[in-house]
């Protein structure tokens, strides 16, 4: 190497300068832009919520009086207790419904598994407030079909089951939320090798004992995780408590928050009142993550993973009966009565030719002043929000997963943060941050779109992140070493590979956004009502035929996009666990 020194030094100096310029990669600028966007979408509304809860209205002086107002009355404290109780009961019911179903679908030779899948998907798609309306038609104390039939059969005066009750509300929530437990538990059971059960069998345990002592304990973390998710879903839910709880005079946190927003709006008290909800949710999510992180619990070995369905014999019909019963109560019955009501002149008269009419749909489609506007609003708000969320999430996921910048994890943390914020709390944060001047976004489409984008960013992020992770970095490196720049490599190699799963992510965000009620109801103005909000307005008016017809329209819109998703992104694209 004696001839080398002079030449390379000159080359290094020359190359050094031009390379240094090239090294201020645009990715740094992108990182700064993303941080700004995420602060605007996530951190600022949350921070503002916290600040407002300690401020005196008008002057902005520090005070604790908001917390005193929020928790000074026993009625308000009772609401919090009610919420927690509701969460516990709903989550317990959901676990009872879902775990046998998950076990049956994952491990046994139960017949008609496809039907069970369809039921789970149906319950997943059905918005909670629609199933609440359906159950009012089924189990209203006076004219609900079930209670009418019960009276007719027995001659008793007492209704069989009154939906306007605490347990009624909990059941309706559980019937709508059990798919979350199902997905968690089934995907955990799918990882348990049959040899686990064989090992128990050879030592003398029967099918039943093996399930009780081996399979279920193995997926215990997944069951707990599902329980927590349903609990959080139930305490953050607005639609069902508003539609069932308010007439039944059962006050929970979310409906109480809604009352703080009635004129005169007391946003600072609402902010203070929302804090426990936020803290409980954040805490429980941490617990849930810890549970699921114990991977050693579920044996995730790929090898020896032979899986045979357990032969249940005649018992398989018992298990199927359970799945069918849950499906009947969760999907078939509520949908059927909704459909019947939507085509009825008076829903209480039941199925009869002279009761049949298209007037409800006609009214909504051609005469109602808000119905078509709200459909259009829903579609374009959701589409813009889904596009923005997926786009931001994709950039963040790419930067984080490829470790392009130092502290990239901060981006990922911000993108996932809305996951621990109940929708209703986020809406109050957005209201506090952006409704009044200088932003003055109240009543605009922008504030709803921004709130939807922020709220569903975690879904988009989880989706994009797993899509990016699935593309081995060497795929891109192989293109680069052959002469393509970073952007060219992304365009030629990475983009085509993640396109399909991104599409699935976009559709999921679109679908959940299009039925979102709790975040929307605090932020809509007179001209920016979404379908979910209008549906709630109609339920307050008490006209169940028109309400049912509008629910039918909402389901049609949802089904169209679910259908597109299944076609393009695979049959179970909504039920995959990220």
């Amino acid at each position, binding site marked *: *190497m004696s001839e*080398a020194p002079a*030449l*390379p*030094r000159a*080359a*290094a100096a020359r*190359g*050094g300068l031009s*390379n*240094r310029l*090239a*090294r201020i990669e645009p990715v740094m600028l992108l990182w700064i832009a993303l941080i700004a966007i995420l602060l605007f979408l996530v951190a600022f509304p949350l921070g503002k919520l916290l600040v407002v809860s300690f401020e005196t209205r008008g002057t902005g002086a520090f005070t604790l009086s908001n917390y005193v107002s929020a928790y000074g009355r026993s009625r308000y404290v009772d609401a919090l207790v009610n919420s927690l109780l509701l969460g516990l009961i709903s989550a317990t019911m959901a676990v009872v419904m879902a775990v046998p179903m998950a076990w049956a679908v994952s491990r046994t030779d139960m017949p008609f598994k496809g039907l069970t899948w369809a039921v789970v998907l149906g319950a997943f798609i059905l918005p909670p407030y629609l199933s609440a309306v359906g159950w009012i038609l089924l189990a209203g104390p006076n004219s609900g079909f079930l209670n009418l039939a019960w009276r007719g059969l027995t001659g008793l005066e007492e209704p069989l089951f009154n939906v306007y009750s605490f347990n009624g509300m909990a059941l309706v929530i559980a019937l709508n939320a059990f798919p979350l437990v199902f997905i968690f538990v089934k995907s955990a059971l799918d990882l348990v090798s049959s040899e686990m059960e064989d090992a128990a069998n050879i030592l003398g345990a029967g099918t039943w004992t093996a399930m009780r002592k081996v399979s279920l304990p193995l997926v215990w973390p997944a069951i707990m995780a599902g329980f927590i998710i349903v609990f959080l879903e139930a305490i953050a839910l607005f639609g069902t408590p508003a539609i069932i709880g308010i007439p039944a005079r059962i006050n929970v946190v979310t409906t109480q928050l809604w009352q703080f927003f009635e004129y005169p709006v007391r946003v600072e008290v609402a902010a203070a009142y929302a804090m426990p909800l936020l803290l409980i949710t954040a805490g429980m999510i941490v617990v849930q993550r810890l549970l699921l992180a114990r991977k050693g619990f579920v044996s995730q070995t790929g090898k020896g993973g032979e899986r045979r369905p357990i032969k249940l014999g005649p018992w398989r019909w018992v298990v199927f009966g359970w799945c069918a019963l849950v499906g009947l109560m969760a999907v078939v019955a509520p949908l059927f009565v909704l459909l019947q009501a939507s085509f009825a002149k008076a829903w209480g008269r039941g199925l009869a030719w002279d009761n049949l009419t298209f007037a409800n749909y006609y009214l909504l489609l051609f005469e109602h002043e808000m119905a078509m506007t709200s459909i259009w609003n829903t579609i374009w708000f959701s589409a813009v929000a889904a596009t923005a969320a997926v786009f931001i999430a994709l950039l963040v996921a790419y930067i984080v997963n490829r470790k392009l910048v130092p502290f990239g994890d901060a981006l990922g943390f911000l993108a996932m943060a809305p996951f621990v914020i109940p929708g209703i709390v986020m809406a109050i944060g957005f209201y506090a941050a952006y409704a009044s001047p200088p932003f003055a976004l109240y009543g605009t489409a922008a504030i709803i779109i921004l709130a939807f984008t922020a709220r569903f960013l975690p879904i988009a992020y989880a989706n994009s992140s797993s899509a990016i992770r699935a593309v*081995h970095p*060497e*795929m891109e*490196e*192989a*293109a*680069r*070493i*052959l*002469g*393509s*720049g970073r952007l060219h490599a992304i365009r*030629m*190699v990475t983009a*085509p*590979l993640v396109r399909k799963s991104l599409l699935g992510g976009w559709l999921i965000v679109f679908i959940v956004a299009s039925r979102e009620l709790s975040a929307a109801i605090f932020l809509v103005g007179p001209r920016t009502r979404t379908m979910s909000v209008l549906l709630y307005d109609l339920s307050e008016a008490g006209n169940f035929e028109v309400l049912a017809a509008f629910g039918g329209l909402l389901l049609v819109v949802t089904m169209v996009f679910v259908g597109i998703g299944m076609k393009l992104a695979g049959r179970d694209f909504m039920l995959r666990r990220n």
Partner: protein
Amino acid sequence: MSRLSIQGLTKAYGPNRVVDSIDLTLAEGEFVSLLGPSGCGKTTTLRMIAGFVDPNEGSISLNGQVISAPGAVLPPEKRGMSMIFQSYAIWPNMTVAENVGFGLKLRKLPGAEIKQRVMQILEVVQMGHLAARYPAELSGGQQQRVALARAIVVKPAVLLLDEPLSNLDANLREEMRFEIRRLHDEFRITTVYVTHDQSEAMATSDRIAVMNAGRIEQVDAPHLLYTRPRTRFVAGFIGRTNLLPAKLRNGEVGFGGISMQAGQVPGADAAAGGDILVSVRPQSIGLHRERPAGSAPMLAGVVSQRTFLGETWDYVVTAQGSDLRLRATAPPLQIHEVGEPVWLAFDPQQMAMVV
């Protein structure tokens, strides 16, 4: 003129120097392996050569032009190299022909020439009949051939291979290592090959650089690494060996009561006196029932353990009058029972002093 030259190359993550000031020079058309246990820094070194990782110190130059130095790194796409990855990184959204033609397209060659060169190289790797297939339809070995074709077809200045055979099963691995050597003999591309498998490195390489803990321990032709290891690590990593503590005094190397002239033991002739280590290959030790004639250094001992490995017997012999335990191999028909006395005959020429 040397094509690829690495000087003082260092990569540190915090205080952890994963590549620690290594020097290596490859002549034009030379095939050099970086061989070492996992975590020794060989892949990081390769990725620095490719331009995916920036060095903290030192430089890499290609034909006298510096391509990597701290703060000044030519991006991978401007280096004119190509690389074969552990995961093959065959793009599943392109056919075999599109994969192979990718680099040629980027070089803006006319379509007809691309087509002709792609078919030509696919014939060379015996994949011509599968040009229109998608990678998902190919076996692991076939994907490997596509990766080879894709890397070679652009006539790279340097070909880099990162454990390319580690995902293949044993038979295929053996076949592919000859394939890689055959392609090198045909195209004479300067090649850096990273592996942890010594037989892979031996079958393919002109020279092997043995790495350990971020440093290069020794660079030599494969047979020299085996017969003339210079460090304790190389002696133990390449093949199996007996590492014996010995004394070097008055021009004589001695252990276990025997001695030989230092001039006969490679590495010991110019060494200073004192306590040293000697590597004695099990294959170089003669096992005899009776004391053989001749002047070779000999030791009496007792067989204390034996294992039949198919191609050889593997005996452990405890020397008499010292606590030396020596491993020696013998052909399948040479059978000694455990507890039987034997004689061990040493050949100083086949030993090596290591540090």
